[in-house]
């Protein structure tokens, strides 16, 4: 292959790209800005960061010992940010989206909950008013609330004044009951007397002055599972990978559209009249596209590494391999745009849609694990999915070279397929 024309084509394309300030900004600055934004949203709690708290409002209309204990429990929960407005204020805050859930503890809740605790008496309501767009947070609040209510009610019933009163009130009733069978009656009386004994015992020195009631019978030990030990998840790694890929695809689609414009302006007549093979012409375009794509990824990740402490925790060779394969795939995608596009205007519309679909399905915006199972399988046919997975594997997941081989292979396969199709469909005749 003649080297001078090939190098001249690459040099010319790079000069043209960098002479267009708008292209440079869109390709290098915009992905960094959007990557930083998405990274800040999706990075989750870092090693020192507090988790994002769910804003709830609690309206305690009961003001009993139990309801006060529930409110205190909710206020001490690390996952919640608790306000205690009036009911009207709480409803307004939920309606305006400022608060996810309003928890209304009605009057006499404590008393009724105590009675219901031993299965005697109707269960009282806890009213939740919630923002229908925040169902996930509602489910979390429901779970956290259950824990604190059970702790507060059981603590009171097994050691508090309410529990003591309840046992004293219940004992004569059980003894006199004609509906409870004698055998059961005996067991219940025995149990309540045992509880009474516990209530009446003086607190031993050093012992807790208040019984704990029911508590969560386990602690959760959380360990982020990456290939390396003590590697914290850095959401910026994913967001910069996704945005870098998105904008290099846009840049390469633009390269294809530029080829259509070159044809429209008669420049391809000059290229085709020169003694240069079709292979050299397409290879020159593919090479300049690959270099530009690699530069876009390199600049994105360099920024993420310096500013957001993103690290290649896995194989550096694998990371570079995925970047190169992804760049080649994007570049051949640009050739495909030039081969299939009828005019720059129509190609621009269609490719914008195609790129957006690819990055959306490929997990460049949001990770693919939140997709339905069938969609997760389906997106394996999208090259962006492999690029994102490959970059994730070699950055924050800390996977070695073996984890990068499949993405590299598949991306090179896509590059070859796009390139072959482009060469086959390219309009070589210049009328």
């Amino acid at each position, binding site marked *: 292959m*003649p080297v*001078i*024309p090939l*190098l*001249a*084509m690459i*040099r*010319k394309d790079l*000069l*043209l790209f960098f*002479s*267009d300030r708008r292209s440079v900004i869109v390709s290098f600055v915009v992905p960094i800005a959007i990557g930083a934004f998405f990274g800040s949203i999706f990075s989750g709690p870092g090693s020192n960061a507090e988790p994002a708290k769910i804003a709830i409002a609690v309206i305690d209309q009961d003001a009993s010992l139990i309801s006060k204990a529930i409110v205190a429990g909710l206020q001490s929960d690390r996952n919640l940010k608790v306000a205690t407005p009036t009911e009207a204020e709480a409803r307004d805050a939920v309606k305006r989206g400022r608060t996810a859930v309003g928890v209304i503890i009605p009057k006499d809740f404590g008393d009724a909950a105590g009675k219901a605790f031993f299965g005697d008496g109707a269960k009282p309501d806890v009213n939740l008013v919630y923002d229908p767009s925040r169902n996930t947070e509602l489910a979390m609040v429901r779970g956290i609330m259950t824990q604190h209510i059970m702790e507060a009610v059981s603590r009171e019933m097994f050691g508090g004044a309410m529990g003591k009163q309840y046992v004293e009130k219940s004992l004569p009733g059980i003894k006199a009951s004609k509906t409870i069978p004698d055998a059961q009656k005996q067991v219940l009386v025995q149990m309540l007397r045992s509880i009474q004994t516990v209530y009446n015992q003086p607190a031993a020195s050093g012992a807790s002055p208040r019984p704990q009631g029911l508590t969560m019978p386990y602690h959760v030990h959380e360990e982020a599972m990456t290939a390396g030990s003590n590697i914290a998840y850095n959401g910026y790694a994913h967001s910069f990978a996704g945005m870098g890929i998105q904008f290099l695809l846009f840049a390469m689609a633009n390269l294809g559209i530029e080829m259509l414009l070159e044809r429209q*302006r*008669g*420049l391809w*007549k*000059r*290229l*085709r*009249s*020169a*003694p*240069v*093979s*079709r292979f050299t012409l397409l290879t020159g375009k593919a090479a300049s596209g690959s270099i530009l794509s690699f530069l876009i990824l390199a600049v994105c990740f360099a920024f993420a590494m310096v500013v957001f402490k993103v690290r290649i925790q896995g194989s550096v060779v694998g990371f570079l391999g995925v970047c190169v394969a992804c760049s080649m795939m994007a570049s051949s995608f640009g050739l495909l745009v030039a081969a299939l596009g009828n005019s720059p205007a129509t190609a621009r519309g269609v490719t914008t849609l195609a790129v957006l679909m690819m990055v959306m399905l490929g997990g460049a915006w949001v990770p693919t694990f939140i997709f339905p199972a069938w969609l997760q399988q389906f997106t394996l046919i999208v090259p962006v999915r492999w690029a994102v997975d490959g970059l994730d594997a070699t950055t924050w997941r800390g996977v070695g070279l073996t984890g990068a081989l499949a993405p590299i292979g598949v991306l090179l396969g896509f590059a070859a397929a796009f390139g072959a199709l482009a060469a086959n469909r390219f309009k070589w*005749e*210049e*009328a």
Partner: protein
Amino acid sequence: MLTINHLRKSFGSLVAVDDVSFSVERGQLIGLLGPNGAGKTTTVSMVAGLLTADKGEVLVGGAALQGDTDPKKRKIGLVPQDLALYDELSARANLRFFGALYDLSGAALDKAMAAALQLVGLADRERDLVKTFSGGMKRRLNLAAGLLHDPDILLLDEPTVGVDPQSRNAIFDNLEELKRRGKALLYTTHYMEEVERLADRIIVIDHGKVIADDTLSGLQARTPGLGGERVTLESVFLTLTGRSLRD
């Protein structure tokens, strides 16, 4: 220098060029005239290797032109009708790129660029971006780009479209200089006065066929004017191709 034998090209059912033959010798400028859609550009495109002929052959120096990478393509320079230049690059960067397509590099490329820019009078603007050029300057640079590799044959497809009289005159001077240097020039245009001034021979093509191939005086002799006056080339052209509109 350039011989075209029985060229034919069709697009679907439309026969754009049908059995066209002619030749261009060294130091000769052939004017290729024809109405819109007559087949001029298709003929030039086949000679330049942009289109593959269905039949016939193009001979350069007696040897048939074959394939994209045929070294004989180096003997042909194309000046397309479009301003085939990169506006965002300087004149020098444009020429550097187009020269490299012909394997020119280093000192040889620098020398070729300097000579081409000198010929078209743009040596002092070589570092300026093409987008800052006037239409006439762009036309002259378009010509320079086709001349860089010093071809023996120059194909000029309406090279003066949309330029002012000064630039047009400058281009004519350039072409006359190239003729003096022994280049073979094939020139398509709609401007009769250009052909009258420059052409050694005129070929009129219509509906894909050559309908006349003669010198200016030979063509004028075919169509005697009233009172024995010599008719204009335009009258000859209209007599040959008819007065119906060709859109």
